[in-house]
């Protein structure tokens, strides 16, 4: 992933790790492909190790769990949506195939079915003295069909519920997971109720039915795992994967950076559901039966345990977690039970003779879940490799740089700016109320294209609310905001960013657990176009777009000299306060804005750093970028702004050139109080 693309001394270590991982995966692939025949190989070598059909079947089950865990990982790990009813989608997929191949719904035969029989979707059978229809949906059609149906169910269920806060979503999904099997149990005519579907058809390939031979199922499972791993890895490293992680880390900031969070969540939910639906088809085809009890809460918990134990968000971790836990269940625990009984008999311990570990699988899973959360929250193979902090020397290679950004470099990274002269942003009569509190009262502000307008005012005067209403984070109770001639009031935050309004936050809202580079890449979300198909198929357009985006992100970081470049691979939460401010500005610049809204950008910086940043902002403006800035440090305001707007108690107090505003009595009174004003006069 992008995090691995660090610089300098870390490169060789990460590359080495990547090479080792690649070698390991290659070896595992060979072993997995050869696995059903290893028994013969062992016997050929004279070893007494047998790989029987039941072993192949156990591993096939493990493969099914790996695909389920990979799907849940997209929902829980990537997008951060805790889904406790994931098995419901598994059930929907399973019943899609089951209902259309079992002997359950058998309408009377009529001419209508002839064309369907010709493409072998149905066959005519004789039951109880009449010709009836037996559905014979092909396994290979059922796989994508079930994926599609599950995804649609995911979207239908997710649409109303994904707006809910994370913890509510958990309980709603728990309920959903509970009722889907109830529905399958209650609609007896379609599903045969609790007794379940019988005679689900085995898949066949080139005219050969799989029957009950475990080997073909094993290979189908292996191919599914292979495809879904590829799918997961490519999505994770794409624009889509980054948008999920952005939503997971900070929904508000994701919106302000151009990510449509409802769409991102629905997509994660649908893709996760599709994985489960496909696995459902595979699973019932293998078992040739489906009952509602196969898809209850314990299954959802088991898949969750696999994801958590493996490492949420880590594709290989999840594969390992699911493999280890499902083989623990089928191989290790029964053996452990036998050993314990043997030792118990030898030493005369009654408990050891009686204990049944295999029957306690769920208990053991529960304990593993709690222990993982308490002692190894990142799981077996953590998603992000921890990067060592920079050495003292590396941190201090560069002091304060004067003179602003390198204009030639910055010019290439900004888009063509609107012509100077017109008004770029016009706020007219905007009012915002929070209950009885009027945060903004009919405020008018005009920002000319290419200008710098500073907003000042005491704390609580409505400055940040002004930014929030411009960027769509709070709703206005009246007024109009025109940007580049078009109304933006009422648009969603991501739509406003797309128009070219980017912002930073007073309290810094970065995606804290993601590296600097990824943060800046997410800023480009609205300017990139790669979709799921492009990312998964690794289309040339997608990969070239990704390469360009990566280079842009590095170039933007490089504007800050040596401040960010050595830290591109560092997780943002490890950075200093000033550097986090810089990352936030870099992220906003990455969205190629026409106007940049900076909310106290120099807060928490020392005077030298403040001066450095002020000059950098100035240089952006000189390249044509329009700037609206909230700032408390009046020397910064004087240095930068063409116009200063003073807010107090949600109303515009005055507006003018910095020097005028500094002398304005009302401003002095608002800031310093009456006594101070009088003292100033006296002096």
């Amino acid at each position, binding site marked *: 992933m992008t995090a691995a693309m660090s610089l300098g001394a870390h490169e060789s270590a990460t590359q080495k790790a990547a090479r080792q991982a690649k070698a390991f995966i290659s070896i595992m692939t060979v072993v997995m492909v050869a696995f059903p025949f290893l028994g013969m190989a062992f016997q050929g070598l004279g070893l007494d190790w047998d790989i029987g059909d039941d072993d192949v079947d156990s591993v096939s089950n493990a493969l099914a769990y790996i695909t389920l865990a990979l799907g849940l990982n997209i929902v829980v790990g990537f997008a951060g949506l805790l889904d406790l009813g994931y098995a419901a989608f598994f059930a929907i997929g399973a019943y899609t195939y089951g209902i259309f191949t079992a002997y359950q719904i058998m309408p009377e035969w009529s001419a209508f079915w002839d064309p369907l029989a010709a493409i072998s979707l149905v066959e005519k059978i004789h039951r109880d003295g009449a010709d009836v229809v037996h559905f014979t949906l092909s396994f290979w059609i059922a796989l994508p069909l079930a994926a599609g149906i599950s995804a649609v169910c995911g979207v239908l269920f997710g649409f109303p519920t994904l707006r809910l806060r994370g913890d509510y979503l958990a309980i709603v999904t728990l*309920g959903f997971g509970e009722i889907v099997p109830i529905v399958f149990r209650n609609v007896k005519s379609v599903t045969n109720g609790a007794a379940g579907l019988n005679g689900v058809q085995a898949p066949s390939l080139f005219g050969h039915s799989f029957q009950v031979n475990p080997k073909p199922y094993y290979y189908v499972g292996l191919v599914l795992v292979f495809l879904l791993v590829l799918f997961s890895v490519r999505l994770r490293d794409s624009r889509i994967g980054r948008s999920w992680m952005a939503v997971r880390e900070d929904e508000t900031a994701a919106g302000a950076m151009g990510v449509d969070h409802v769409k991102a969540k629905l997509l994660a939910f649908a893709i996760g559901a599709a994985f489960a639906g496909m696995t459902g088809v595979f699973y019932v085809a293998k078992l040739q039966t489906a009952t509602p009890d196969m898809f209850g809460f314990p299954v959802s918990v088991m898949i969750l345990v696999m994801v958590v134990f493996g490492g949420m968000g880590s594709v290989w971790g999840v594969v390992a977690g699911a493999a280890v836990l499902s083989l623990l269940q089928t191989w290790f625990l029964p053996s452990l039970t036998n050993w314990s009984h043997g030792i118990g008999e030898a030493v005369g311990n009654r408990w050891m003779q009686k204990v049944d570990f295999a029957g306690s699988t769920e208990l053991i899973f529960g*304990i593993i879940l709690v222990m993982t959360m308490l002692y190894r929250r990142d799981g077996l193979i953590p998603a992000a490799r921890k990067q060592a902090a920079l050495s003292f020397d590396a941190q201090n290679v560069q002091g304060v740089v004067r003179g602003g950004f390198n204009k030639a470099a910055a010019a290439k990274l900004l888009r063509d700016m609107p012509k100077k002269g017109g008004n770029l942003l016009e706020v007219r009569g905007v009012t915002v109320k929070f209950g009885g509190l009027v945060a903004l009262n009919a405020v008018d502000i005009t920002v000319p294209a290419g200008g710098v307008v500073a907003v000042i005012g005491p704390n609580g005067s409505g400055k940040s609310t002004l930014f929030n209403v411009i960027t769509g984070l709070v709703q206005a109770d009246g007024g109009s905001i025109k940007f580049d001639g078009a109304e933006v009031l009422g648009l969603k935050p991501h739509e406003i960013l797309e128009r070219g309004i980017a912002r930073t936050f007073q309290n810094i809202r970065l995606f804290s657990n993601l590296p600097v580079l990824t943060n800046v890449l997410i800023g480009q979300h609205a300017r990139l176009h790669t979709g799921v198909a492009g990312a998964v198929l690794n289309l040339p357009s997608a990969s070239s777009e990704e390469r360009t985006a990566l280079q842009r992100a590095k170039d933007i970081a490089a504007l800050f000299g040596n401040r960010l470049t050595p830290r591109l691979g560092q997780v943002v939460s490890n950075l200093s306060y000033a550097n986090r401010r810089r990352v936030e500005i870099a992220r906003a610049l990455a969205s190629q804005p026409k106007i940049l809204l900076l909310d106290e950008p120099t807060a928490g910086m020392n005077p030298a750093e403040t001066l450095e940043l002020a000059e950098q902002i100035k240089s952006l403006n000189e390249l044509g970028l329009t700037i609206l800035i909230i700032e408390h440090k009046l020397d910064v305001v004087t240095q930068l702004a063409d116009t200063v707007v003073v807010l107090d108690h949600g109303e515009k107090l005055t507006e003018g050139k910095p020097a005028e505003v500094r002398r304005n009595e009302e401003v002095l009174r608002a800031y310093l109080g009456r006594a101070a004003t009088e003292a100033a006069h006296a002096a």
Partner: protein
Amino acid sequence: MTAVDVYLQQAINGVSLGAMYALLALGFTLVYGILELINFAHFNVFMVGSFVGLGMLELLGVMPNDPALTGLTLVGVLLLTFAVTMVFSGALGVLIERVALRPLRNIRGPASMITTIGVSYVLFNIVLLGFGADAKNFPSPLPQVQFAIGGAVLRLREILIWVISIGLMGGLTYFVQFTKMGKAMRATAQDPDAARMMGVEVDRVIITAFFLGSALAGAGGLMFGLYYNITSYVIGFQAGLRAFTAAVLGGIGNVPGAMLGGIIIGLVEAFGSYWISAAWADVIIFSILVLVLVFKPAGLLGRIAPNKS
């Protein structure tokens, strides 16, 4: 039975169920109000409470299918059983908080919630392995006294549930509203950091919330056994989901809301089962949960605890 009698009977059943759900909902609400955490372990603290009650009754020599007790013996047995069950369940809640949740308290994200699922699952499976999958008969020490109200029947067990529930909820309301600890609890729910700076021992508040909530859940579990004369390792899941729905319906974090929500959900279950089918009861209740969350997430009585996120 006339239609009115049937409705009256369903109302009696519904209010009795609702009283149990309300007790369970209070535990969700207390913990959520303070920690903004959905405590899934609470589901099975209720179930464990029912088994503790069963054990206590049998320890006192009251076996399933024994004749009913009367007079002071009955009162004594019930008081002792309720007391032991509630203390045990409360202690279990405190243990869960101390061992599994406190280490994660300052971790962002779903870590704590996932842990409570794990704990819940562990409790569930311990009882399953220890007592088996079969439903257990529960002693019924209550005399078969019943009153006819028109064609409907009001049994002593229902009266008992109502009386005990009202008593416990009244006690809790008094505690939260009028004691020093209750005040500390409300302050912590508003803003834990500010409360800590004002000298509130937040750890103690949290432990108290877990103790009280779990004790009420234990009492609910015992009532479940006395009401249905049966218990099983699976009862926590259904009852828990319903009680959580009740808490959300009333306004999570809101103590009177949990009680109101509990009664409403009990009535919905009773009438829904009668009008539609008991097999669809879960589907109906779940639909209510989704509708409330989507359209009125603050619940009927609103949230007392502000949204801290």
